[in-house]
């Protein structure tokens, strides 16, 4: 992991995991890799938090898990998005967009002269 990678904002891990999985079923390590890859290495997922997050999302029925075999033919638990997960991801993406636009607008304000 590059030293310049940024730690995630609190509460955003679930959203990122859902997005990563929405592109296709992944095992835990695959989720980690995909987030790093999509963020161009800018975001670093704390490995210790990843698995509790995955299990939590399964418990909330946003993700479903099943056992399959990974690229090197090992047994691995794969996660995929459920119907509810899709809806949730859409909602949260919209919300995130509004919040970040808002924050960006606030931060872009200049002092009135």
């Amino acid at each position, binding site marked *: 992991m590059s030293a310049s990678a940024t730690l995630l904002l609190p509460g955003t891990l679930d959203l990122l995991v859902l997005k990563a999985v929405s592109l296709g079923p992944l095992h835990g390590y695959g989720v980690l890799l995909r987030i790093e890859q999509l963020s161009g290495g800018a975001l670093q997922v704390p*490995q210790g938090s990843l698995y509790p997050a995955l299990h939590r999302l399964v418990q909330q029925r946003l993700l479903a898990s099943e056992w399959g075999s990974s690229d090197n033919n090992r047994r691995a638990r794969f996660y995929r998005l459920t119907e509810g997960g899709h809806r949730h991801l859409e909602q949260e993406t919209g919300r995130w967009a509004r919040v970040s636009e808002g924050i960006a607008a606030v931060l872009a304000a200049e002092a009135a002269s």
Partner: protein
Amino acid sequence: MRRWLHTLRNRRYERELAEEIEHHIDERTADLVARGLDPDGARSQARREFGSVDLVKDHCRDQDRLAWLDELTRNLRFAVRRLRRAPGVFVAVVATLALCVAANAVVFTVVDTVLFQRLPYPAPEELFEVQWSSEQSRGSLRDSVDGTMWQSLADTAPELRACVYSDWTQGVNLIARSPTGAEVATVVERQRVGSGFFELLGVPMASGRGFDIDEDRVGGAAVAVVTWRLWRDRLGAREDVLGSRLLLAGEAHTVVGVTAERFDPGTGAEVFTPLRASREGEGSGTNYRILARIGDHERAGATAALDTASRSVAAMRGDGFSFEPVPLLQARSGWLRDRLLVLWAAVGAVLLIRCVNIAGLLIAAAGRRRQEMATRRALGGGAWAVTRQLLTENLLQTACGAALGLALAGVAMRWVAGWARTALGLTHDFALDDRALLYTLAVALLATVLFSLAPTARLARTDRSSLRQRGVTDRRSKGRAVLVAGQVALGVSLLLAATLLTRSLSGLSSADPGVELEGVVSGAVSLADANFAEAGAVREYFASGVEALRADPRLVGAGAFLSLPFQRGLNMNFTLAGDDDRHLTVVNYATPGALELLAVRHVAGRLIEDRDRSTSPLVAVVNQTFTELHLAGRQPLGARISLMGAEREVVGVVGDVRQVPSFSASAPLARDVPTVYLPADQFPVEAMGMVHTWFQPHWVVRARATPAAGTEALRSAIERLEPVTPIARISGLEEARARALAVERFQALLFAVLALLALVLAAVGLAGITATEIGARRREMAVRIALGSSLPEVVRRAILPILGVAAIGLAIGLLLAQLGGRALRGMLHGIGTDDPWSHLIVIGCLVGVAVLACAPPALRLLRLPVASVLQDEA
């Protein structure tokens, strides 16, 4: 709790969690190796990056913990904590629920077994009893038939699968070889059944067969069928029992069959002999029953056959006679049906009271816990979370109460079953089966959950604003008052029913029996025996027996009767001299001095004396009811009556003796039964054999000291006298009376228990509402006291509304009882449902209970710390 959850989680979960993390570290290691690290370094770096595996696993487990289970355990822990804080309420709730559950389980088992469950025979729905009605019976069915009716049915409807039998059992003497080789004489219950009886009931024999047609004819071979139990216990379980000889009733019988172990004839019989139905003798009266098996496809044919038979009997009798098939289950349990249904209703009423009670307690709890709930809601507890918490508490109580109740029911069931067997003669196999368990569980759930849903849901809706309104009474207490009045009403009607039944019973059992019971001991012997076929043998037996007993210094006197007080007597038709009208009377016989021994009141003329021998002029002694009914306006002494083919003179009149009326039954024991006493020596020889197959005569002695001495004297004297004629059922007359009233006692006691339970529950309800009411009005009371109201005035104001609730409940209850009283009417004797004393007792009880229930909270009011209440709530 944590460890418990861990063990609950299965091993597979742990294995998969470990595997998942291991896979992650392996993948990471492989990536790092691909980037050029050496394998060992790569692995340790992967582990470092991952952090503590145990910690991650723990966090995963936290996420995966079964959410509802977790909440349930949390709720349960909370409930247990709360219950520990108020153990009194918990114990009260669990105890009352347990009693309700136990009562319901036991009564349901009895009702279900007797009324609804299938008879213990194959295809029991095909079994019918053929009953009959005529114009004279005005549509009501008679269950017994005479020989003519049976013969007509058998002749005109041979295609009908039917048989005739007697449902009476009598003790007869059985002489069997004991395992030690000695011959032992015992009395066994014998039932006489026609050919085809066992085949129709359909339970295959353990071995051998039932009776064939030739054996069931007069003069047929002497054969017997024994029950499995008799074979095992008395016949030494011999393999070669079929074809062996059995000395039964003094006659050698060949054993042709052994019934199956589980075979239950429903009469308690231990041995069966052929009935040999005829039109004469026994068959001239309605002493038989008809059993028929009618399959579904045979219905039409059977109806047609019965119609044909009905017409042929009707033509003979000319009275619109008609046969009617009645399902056997109904025919057997019909006499208990009303009583059991009333009992079931009563136990249901108790359950309803208990439900109302729970609802009331919960409303009260809602009042007290509004603060807590509002706080929880304010802290973010969802409405359903709060409801679930309350339901968990109820479920905990239900579970405890139901478990305790079932345990209690198990104990009570054994007791009730024993009683039903000995007192009511029910041979059913009473046991708490899965039907009863299911019913009980449903009942317990209904009692708590359903009735607690409304109050809890309402409580859960408590909003945050009630945090501010402390101690304000609301309209809810009005709803609760209605509930309490309702439960008082149900309790009152149950109490009234119990009081009426108890007073009816005590009237029956304390009424003058017409004889002196003290010290009297009796025992039955069976004279339906080849040894007593000659009338002379019977006379000889009585004479020598009386002589032997009179010689015993422990006894005041001795005698013999055909039937005793508190028993059912023999019915006979008689005519008065110069009149052809036939009347019915009870006929009894007595040895000289026997009437004096029982201290039957001597009214006129003389009693039976030593001079009344078979050769001397025929005489009779009649009772007062007989003279009033049949000799009114005449001089009874010297009147002549014709009985069993011989004319005799009335020489004496005695007082009435209480007995089980065998015709025009109105009460279980009655004194107004016309009765004729004949000297035992003068009882008609022709009738002797027949009468002794129905009735076992009784020896009677009066002990000088204790009844135990009488028992011993009686047994030793009679068995020495005639070793092959054992004496059975030795008991005091008091016990005989208790036996005759067994059904009434059974019912009165069960009702009393239920009424007591209902009263306790109503008291709990009243006490609860008083406590809440006074609790809610503490401030008002304090203000009143501070402003100078006297304490008694304040107490009066506090409890008057409660007594008002009780009074309304009482009024409704008495009204309810009037409506429901119709069901009880047939079960009350000597009093009506409007019995004023019973009403007074109920009112008194209720006033007492109401005062007792609201006294403690009202007395607490006297110690009200006025200043602090005012300060606290200002």
